[in-house]
């Protein structure tokens, strides 16, 4: 396993853990909130709402814009 594979494995691990957490939140009684609830909670304030939307806009800029 080289560095390339390890780096990709790290991304996949983060992604997989996110899926597991979401499944735990929605399919079990483990006290983990679904990601949607976390986002809703974070977006209750203007700073949180705007900050998350700016982060979303940045994703578009990063991948498509100059």
């Amino acid at each position: 396993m080289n560095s390339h594979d390890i780096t990709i494995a790290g991304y996949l691990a983060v992604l997989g853990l996110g899926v597991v957490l979401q499944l735990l939140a929605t399919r079990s009684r483990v006290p983990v909130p679904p990601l949607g609830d976390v986002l809703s909670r974070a977006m209750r304030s203007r700073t949180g709402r705007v900050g998350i939307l700016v982060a979303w806009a940045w994703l578009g800029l990063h991948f498509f814009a100059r």
Partner: protein
Amino acid sequence: MGSSRRGRQPRSPHHPPWGAEGSEAGSGAAAEAAVSAARPGPRVFALLAGFRHPIVAILLAIAFFTAISGKPVDGVLMLIAAVSLAWDAGRRAGDDGGGAVTDEGPPATGAAAATATAPGVAAPGAAAPGIAAPGEPVPGEPMPGVAAPCVSYPGEPAPGVTAPGEPAPGVTAPGEPAPGVTAPGEPAPGVTAPGGAGPGVADSGAAGPAGGARGLAGARRRVWRWRKVLLAAALLAGGAAYAGVVGSFIRYSWPATAAIIGLGTVVVMIGWRGPVRRRQVPGRLPIAGTAVWGLLFVAGCLWELAALLKQPTLTTTSYAHPTVSTLTDPVLANAGGRSAMLAAWLAVGWYLVRR
């Protein structure tokens, strides 16, 4: 858009739009503004306090790393957003002087009006450590009269209490047909309309006044449903057209940049005004479970950052340590891939703006 420069005045239910706020300024408020302008010290400190907000710090970090990785336009835009947010948070903190904390935005209209929190009412929720900025929820503080949990977790109090800005059970948004609530002129369930037939009897009162009102209410509901369907179809068509057209532009070209910046700006401005619809907001979340999400997010960011820093230079990609951008390059190299990714980006934006 934001709160005024002056100290916040108590709002009446008929408070004018934010832009018209100056027209109702009393002489006291004007004098207060003059005094504030003459003493910039506390205001400057309040503005600087806005930079202590975690989200502002994250945006500043994004701006820095984006700029040094060869994307100065992105970096400058992120910097503008972070400074604007810090300025707004700090200004609201300064205006309120740490008094009543409100989760306020501009006056909401239509369905969004249902989410507006009453003035002078604190909103529970997450907030910046050490910053009690108005408009920021206070962590762990139940709100007088309006506590929030709409979603319960093991060990959490049961729901049944309405969140701030949330309508009480049985209350519907303007223009929405209420479940279990009869429309004006419509007879209540189980009640026979005057001149109408009883339960189980064919309704022969369509020609009567009650039947006419019932027919009118039904027609209104049908029109309302059709409007929703048409709006959804228009949004889907618009999104598909946007993804198709912008995806056809060369990556990193100025037309693509302008299209992304334009849409991003519109969405952020909409978000700045507040929620676009009445929505259910969860109450206090389990701390450990929420922290796990936070740790996962931080771990993902650090992994990406490590890959970025292990590149030969910040602007030269590395096969051994690919960033997410490097990994997605093959997909985004063709128009179809770009359009698909743009559609996904739009869907996420639509999901977020409705939160």
